[in-house]
């Protein structure tokens, strides 16, 4: 039998029961749109997290004191762990060829005062390569030079929030602020970075030379070291070099940890993949329920149209003609539900991105294709049994049915 004629018959049957068809499609519609919407939202969330992490700078390597995986070398607690020092940083700068920049890092909080205004802010102690390693640039003024860093001059750069809170509309460059007990001259204003993951405000900080920070916090130990690999292809090589160089300085003990940004990203990626699969799976259950709805309605339709099946068989329809006719109808029902579901999901992503503009959902092509294929499969799977029942009807009994 002619496929176009079958599609025409299916549409006229669907149109003949508009409300019922619409309600049946609703099941598939909700299933498809929730699958697509949830996948889009998690994909958007993932992109957001990745951009937040890469916002810190690409090809970043993080060196932290202590072993995170094992304490075998250190005995109980962190007793045997040697601190990371400026010496380690200098060794890296001199010998690690896969690295194009390295900065020591000290993090603390201190009270910062300008005239009568005071604010407790995060204080970073770094050296002149900081802006090269971490993706934070000076907005006006300048960052400190190698001389500033090594001679522990009392100069600093401040973030936008600190500037707004302490200076208002005043130009902070060249002004002196009090950090802890010492006076620092402001030489630069950092560009606005916003928050990372909605918590830490990267604009609410003051950056000073690392040696000044060591004095301020009265410590020789570094919070950590940050390095940047020359390219993303040598990240593993850079990690190997850093490990070797610092290990040598620490008496052949690996009492520190090197983390690559990529390792962090791939961990993040696998967590989100799991999350998105779980959510899509839950949404797929509603698609299953939608399929059962289709099967239900198709069974009703077969019963209602028993007479029609009898007439068709009397004039020569074979079993497969009837089977295909009802199968085409259930596929079209399901597909129409699927297509409207895709459109609804599209509207949903637009609304979501208006409500949460920071984390816009990403409508991916594969989720749309998958949903389309899935709704066809639902139509076939849940349409086969009713269509088979219709095909098996005996013509005489079907004709007699009122």
């Amino acid at each position, binding site marked *: *039998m*002619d496929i*176009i*004629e079958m599609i025409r018959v299916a549409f*006229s*049957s669907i149109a*003949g029961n508009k409300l019922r068809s619409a309600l049946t499609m609703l099941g598939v519609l909700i299933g498809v749109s929730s699958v697509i919407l949830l996948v889009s939202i998690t994909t958007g969330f993932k992109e957001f997290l990745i951009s937040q992490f890469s916002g810190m700078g690409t090809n970043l390597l993080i060196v932290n004191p202590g072993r995170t995986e094992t304490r075998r070398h250190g005995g109980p607690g962190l007793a045997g762990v040697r601190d990371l020092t400026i010496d380690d940083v200098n060794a890296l700068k001199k010998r690690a060829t896969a690295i194009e920049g390295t900065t020591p890092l000290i993090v603390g909080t201190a009270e910062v005062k300008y005239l009568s205004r005071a604010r407790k802010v995060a204080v970073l102690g770094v050296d002149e390569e900081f802006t090269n390693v971490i993706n934070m640039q000076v907005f006006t003024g300048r960052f400190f030079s190698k001389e500033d860093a090594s001679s522990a001059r009392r100069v600093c750069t401040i973030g936008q929030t600190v500037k707004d809170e302490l200076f208002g509309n005043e130009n902070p460059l060249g002004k002196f602020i009090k950090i802890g007990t010492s006076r620092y001259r402001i030489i630069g204003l950092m560009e606005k970075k916003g928050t990372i993951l909605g918590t830490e405000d990267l604009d609410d900080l003051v950056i000073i030379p690392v040696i000044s920070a060591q004095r301020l916090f009265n410590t020789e130990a570094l919070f950590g070291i940050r390095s940047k690999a020359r390219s993303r292809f040598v990240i593993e090589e850079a990690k190997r070099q850093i490990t070797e160089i610092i290990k040598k300085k620490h008496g052949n003990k690996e009492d520190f940890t090197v983390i690559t940004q990529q390792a962090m990203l791939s961990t993040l990626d696998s967590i989100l993949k799991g999350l998105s699969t779980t959510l899509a799976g839950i949404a797929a259950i509603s698609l299953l329920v939608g399929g059962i709805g289709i099967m239900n309605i198709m069974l009703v339709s077969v019963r209602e149209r028993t*007479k*029609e099946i*009898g*007439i*068709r*068989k*009397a*004039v*020569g*329809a*074979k*079993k*497969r*003609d009837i089977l295909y006719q009802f199968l085409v109808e259930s596929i079209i029902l399901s597909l129409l539900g699927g297509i409207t579901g895709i459109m609804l999901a599209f509207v949903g992503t637009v609304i979501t991105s208006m409500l949460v503009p920071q984390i816009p959902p990403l409508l991916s092509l594969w989720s749309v294709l998958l949903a389309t294929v899935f709704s066809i499969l639902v139509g076939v799977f849940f349409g086969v049994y009713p269509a088979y029942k219709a095909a098996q009807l005996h*013509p*005489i009994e079907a*004709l007699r049915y009122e």
Partner: protein
Amino acid sequence: MPEPEKRMEPLINLHNASKVYKIGKLYINALKDLNLIIESGEFISIIGPSGSGKSTLMNIIGFLDILTEGSYHFRSKDVSYLEEDELSGMRNREIGFVFQNFNLLSRTTAIKNVELPLLYAGADRKRRQYLAEKAIETVGLKQRQLHNSNELSGGEIQRVAIARAIVANPQIILADEPTGNLDSKTGKEILETFERLHSQGRTVILVTHDPAVAEKANRIISLLDGRINRDVRK
């Protein structure tokens, strides 16, 4: 001698035909050892009270059902125990049905109803349309062909059904009480249509319980309790 040889090959040859239905635990012998030969081009009425086996005989002749015992030869071919889909093919090619309660598809135009047998015969769209228009013209309904079946009168519906029965040019027109639901004037027109189809060379078989209708045919077969009671040729 070619003449008698031709008669040796009847269109329909039922030999010792029996049909037993099982309803619950009850067995009903709808046809009992029935023998019937129908030649091509005959105009036959099958008459009898309800329960006499008229409908069963019609279903057997029309390939809607198969025998329990005995044989059915159609153009010398044994068609007694064909599979369901083979029977569908036979119905499609050889039989044009006209039912008492019309049996048109609802929500479907007259022309689409007439096209139906051609659809299952595998004719393409153009050919279906051409033949359906021709058939609907034969029954004089060309101006009503795009109306849905629920917009037509009883007589018009039966004429659409006749158009559907002749569209694939089958050898046999099998009509089950075709005038049963029509007023006498319309019924007369319908019967005239059957007479015209017969005069064009088709085999027409009318199943009826109305002696006045049966009178139109050239041969009247009376059934009683699943057997042929009388077989009268005019």
